[in-house]
């Protein structure tokens, strides 16, 4: 890793809070949040991949390092760069520039602010060309292409480039949709993006005083007022959105919108009524709902016990939605290496969370049916307990509801992002999804997040805990981004726990939701182009994409992978075609026809990949089937052997 210009970066900025959990110093926070808002001006939660890529390149770190950083921060996994991932990435960049290895641990120390040479405008960062970013799959809106060329010319010379693409492109998944499980990440992300992106005068002052990042400051200054205003706007919007839910502060115990939505989704899978609660125990011989749920995270029992202690503030043996969010958040934090606090952090208090929880619930069209005020949940304890007894049915209900909801929201970034929730608690939802033969759409949806969560949990036991799916750098296209992530995670999740490793290649799904190709983008940098173009037609494509799933009921049996793959397959074709006309009007200036061709080619490629993936999946399933048959035969023979004994 090159020390790079980091030498210049004022260590003064490194006067971090030095808290237990990756705290961000004030300057860091400002810087980061600034940068983040630069990367995703619109009120989205995730930074545009291209802009992020540019920003990273501006850090003058070697591509390998940047790639590593991307992986560590979880953007690849998540498929987009949400605040959490972004912040972590920025912190890692700072660490790398200071000579530390790219690790989560290294950013626990105070580090100088990362330096970005020739930082481009926020817009550019947002719409940066992911393709250029090694391994980082960003959705490359066509505007990004512009920027790419622009950037290439001046290594990160961010100009107003971003301005035009900013609005249409930089629509990272709605903050609610991005799930940033890593408290550190979002904590950092907020601070960083705020700092770096909010490149307003005040920030510059801060920058100059706190870090001698002359070049980067200069770059920031280069941004047009528009850029600044946009990030400000976006940031303020973000702040507004997430304000209640603990925004960009250096507090790792704050829950971002995405995380909250994820938690709410999970809660929903356990208990459809948000006003009720998840009982710690219920009459079923299967054991307590919440206990099983959290046990899936594979944390040791004493820690889970402590988490429960912290989160169940009313000590009633059940978790209301805010309590559940807090508990889930603590689990996430723990899995990512944070030490559990002795007392519940302020931002995780149920009262605090309740207000916040209400927001995403209401904002999310997805949860329309559940828009009952959360506080009432406190009252319905007993009722909730009774409800809880039907834990089995909950997933079904939730899935059903999700189905209905899915129809409503085409561009539901939230839903899509929800799917990208960490796979810890996938099982519940997966079962529910399996039981539902209808609503193919809902299935992928529920599966996506449920599976992801469960799978994640399962995977966590298998792999070193990786950050929960974070918003990838896909930036603008929330919908596409989400879908991609979902599918990606679905496959990953399934791979870890359920079926034989699902074809990891989600790449075939590029155009699934046009915009949401972040996951695919990650896997296939080439895909970036089509996704970027697809982005433009986000809304149109999403509908197309959504329409796709129902057309293939047969394949749905395969669950996540199948669905994920199917939709991408169908969607790419449709998207391509639909995108073609759509692209034209959207594409600002650039070579539309060439992009279209590229899109078509990409789509073709993706389709082929999807085919390969499906073929692989098919063979894997066949193998599984054989194994199951063998087992069955063995059991039957055993039964036969035992039978004569009992017949005495």
């Amino acid at each position, binding site marked *: 890793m090159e020390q790079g210009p980091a030498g210049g970066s004022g260590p003064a900025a490194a006067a971090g809070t030095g808290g237990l959990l990756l705290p961000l110093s004030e300057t860091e926070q400002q810087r980061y949040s600034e940068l983040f808002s630069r990367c995703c001006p619109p009120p989205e939660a995730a930074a545009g991949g291209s802009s992020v890529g540019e920003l990273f390149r501006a850090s003058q770190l070697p591509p390998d390092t940047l790639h590593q950083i991307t992986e560590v921060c979880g953007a690849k996994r998540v498929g987009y760069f949400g605040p959490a991932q972004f912040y972590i990435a920025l912190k890692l960049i700072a660490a790398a520039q200071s000579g530390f290895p790219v690790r989560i641990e290294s950013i626990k120390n105070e580090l100088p602010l990362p330096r970005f040479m020739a930082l481009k405008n926020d817009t550019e960062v947002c719409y940066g060309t992911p393709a250029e970013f090694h391994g980082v799959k960003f959705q490359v809106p066509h505007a990004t292409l512009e920027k790419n060329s622009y950037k290439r010319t001046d290594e990160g010379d961010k100009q107003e480039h971003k301005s035009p693409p900013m609005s249409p492109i930089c629509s990272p998944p709605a903050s609610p949709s991005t799930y940033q499980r890593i408290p550190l990440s979002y904590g950092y992300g907020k601070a960083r993006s705020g700092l770096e992106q909010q490149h307003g005068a005040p920030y510059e002052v801060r920058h100059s005083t706190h870090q001698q990042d002359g070049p980067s400051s200069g770059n920031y200054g280069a941004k047009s007022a528009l850029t600044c205003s946009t990030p400000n706007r976006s940031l303020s919007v973000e702040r507004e959105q997430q304000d209640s839910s603990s925004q960009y502060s250096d507090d790792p115990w704050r829950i971002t919108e995405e995380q909250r939505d994820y938690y709410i989704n999970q809660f929903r899978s356990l208990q459809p009524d948000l006003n009720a609660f998840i009982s710690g125990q219920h009459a079923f011989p299967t054991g307590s709902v919440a*206990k099983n749920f*959290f046990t899936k995270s594979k944390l040791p029992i*004493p820690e889970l*016990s*402590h988490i429960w*202690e912290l989160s169940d503030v009313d*000590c*009633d*043996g059940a978790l209301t939605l805010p309590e559940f969010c807090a508990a889930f958040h603590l689990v996430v934090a723990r899995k990512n290496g944070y030490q559990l606090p002795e007392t519940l952090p302020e931002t995780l208090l149920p009262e605090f969370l309740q207000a916040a929880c209400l927001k995403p619930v209401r904002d999310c069209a997805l949860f329309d049916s559940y828009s009952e005020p959360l506080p009432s949940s406190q009252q319905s304890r007993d009722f909730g307990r009774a409800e809880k007894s039907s834990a089995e049915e909950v997933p079904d209900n939730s899935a059903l509801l999700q189905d209905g909801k899915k129809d409503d929201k085409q561009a539901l970034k939230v839903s899509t992002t929800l799917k990208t929730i960490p796979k810890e608690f996938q099982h519940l939802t997966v079962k529910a999804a399996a039981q539902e033969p209808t609503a193919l759409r809902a299935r992928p949806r529920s599966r996506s997040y449920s599976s992801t969560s469960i799978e994640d949990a399962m995977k966590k036991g298998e792999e070193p805990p990786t950050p929960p799916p974070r918003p990838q750098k896909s930036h603008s296209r929330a919908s596409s981004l989400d879908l991609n992530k979902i599918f990606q995670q679905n496959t990953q999740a399934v791979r870890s726990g359920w079926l034989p490793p699902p074809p990891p290649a989600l790449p075939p799904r590029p155009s699934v939701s046009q915009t949401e190709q972040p996951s695919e983008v990650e896997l296939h940098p080439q895909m970036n182009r089509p996704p970027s173009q697809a982005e433009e037609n986000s809304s149109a494509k999403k509908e197309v994409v959504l329409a796709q799933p129902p057309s293939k009921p047969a394949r749905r049996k395969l669950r996540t992978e199948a669905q994920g793959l199917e939709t991408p397959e169908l969607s790419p074709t449709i998207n391509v075609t639909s995108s073609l006309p759509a692209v034209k009007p959207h594409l600002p200036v650039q070579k539309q026809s060439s992009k279209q061709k590229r899109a078509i080619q990409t789509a073709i490629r993706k389709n082929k990949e999807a085919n390969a993936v499906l073929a692989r999946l098919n063979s894997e399933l066949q193998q599984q089937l054989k194994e199951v048959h063998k087992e069955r035969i063995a059991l039957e023979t055993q039964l036969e052997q035992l039978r004569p004994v009992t017949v005495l």
Partner: protein
Amino acid sequence: CDLFCSQNYPLYIRSVPTENELKFHYTVHTSLDVVDEKISAMGKALVDQRELYLGLLYPTEDYKVYGYVTNSKVKFVMVVDSSNTALRDNEIRSMFRKLHNSYTDIMCNPFYNPGDRIHSRAFDTMVNSMMMQVC
């Protein structure tokens, strides 16, 4: 010194200032016999809050032992210095009540199996603060 017992094995022991833990262990174990005696003496009488408190079990020259049993037959035993004459019965009762409440909170935790040692930090905090008040 506090001790919780269930099925006559300790779930939780904490003693304050003095370090004679072993001696307290012995004291508590012997007092368990007294507790059992009182429980059996109660017979089938309805067990209400008042009867949960067993009162002074065993006054010795050095200390007093108080007992308290929950409805689930978990026994709380408290040993206090005789020099602490300031401790009145009401205070002891309130302390036991607090202990009982904390214990039920622990029980609510689905990850806690009845019969396990109690490792809850919140519980520790509560007990420590309570003992600090007295000693």
